[in-house]
């Protein structure tokens, strides 16, 4: 059986290089037959695509998509640099 570290690295590489996602900085952890995705993206569709690509690269693992969608809120307090 392939070491889980290599599988995780392959999934992470796919998330960065697959034309549907191109998402860097997603953390991939594997425990037994469970795969966990964590990180932040700008939209719900991107989160779903990342889950899909991870599933395609490691179809034998159960994917837990724990990625958060960051909603940009209105600007807050100004910072004064003096």
């Amino acid at each position, binding site marked *: 059986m392939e070491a889980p570290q290599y599988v995780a690295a392959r999934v992470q590489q796919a998330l960065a290089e697959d*034309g549907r996602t*191109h998402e860097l*900085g997603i953390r991939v952890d594997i425990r037994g037959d469970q795969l966990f995705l964590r990180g*932040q993206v*700008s*939209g719900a*569709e*991107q989160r779903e695509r990342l889950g899909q690509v991870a599933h395609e690269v490691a179809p034998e693992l159960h994917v837990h998509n724990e990625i958060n969608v*960051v909603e*940009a*809120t*209105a*600007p*807050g307090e*100004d*910072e*004064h*640099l*003096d």
Partner: protein
Amino acid sequence: MTDLRIAAVGDIHLGEDVRGQYRKKLEGIEDRADVFMLAGDLTRHGTLEEGRVVADELRGLPIPVIAVLGNHDYHSDLQYEIASELRDAGVIVLDDDGVVVQCGDKKLGVVGGKGFGGGYAGKCASEFGEREIKNFVSHTRYIAEAWKVALKEIVADHRVVLSHYSPIKETLEGEPPEIYPFLGSYLLAEAVDTAGADLILHGHAHKGSEKGMTPGGIRVRNVALPVLGRAYCVYCLNCADDLQTHP
């Protein structure tokens, strides 16, 4: 006391599926800021379609808009075409050069470009060994030199550097230290410290921290959208000293 108000954000990563959404967040920006700066990674894959979405979101804003591109915007080898789309929409796109914009009675000089990696003093790549490594480091060195020259040439009341990659590691805190060499280079900070500036803005490090400072004491802000959690942040450069000099 007159402040020069700079709205800034990076890493907005727009695409067709979110068309129109970011623009809504920019409503009223002219009441909050004098200029809007974007620190790269405006698209996801650097396609022309995404570049056009960004151009449409920024088109016709009532304040000057200044942008640099990021590594994502280079992915499809269409960086020049994307920059051209943005320029057609009225955005000033910096590519290792500078511009002066009039903000009220103040001249604001902005110098910048994408920047590049290499790492930070004591733990960085050097121009030694294989051609690939030498190319990597010399690319950053070339950029840093261009910024230094542009900063020295610019005549303005205030000078701001706009980058995608980070000039310091303080604003990377939260990112794994192993990838710091891919997130920026101290050569960028060294160049700006040598030439002088009031503020450096960068993006790229989504998991980094907002606030830091160069070894020379220039304030650095990581304005990547995931770091800010907001559509943009506003930084006010205090012009009180100038007022005292010229009452």
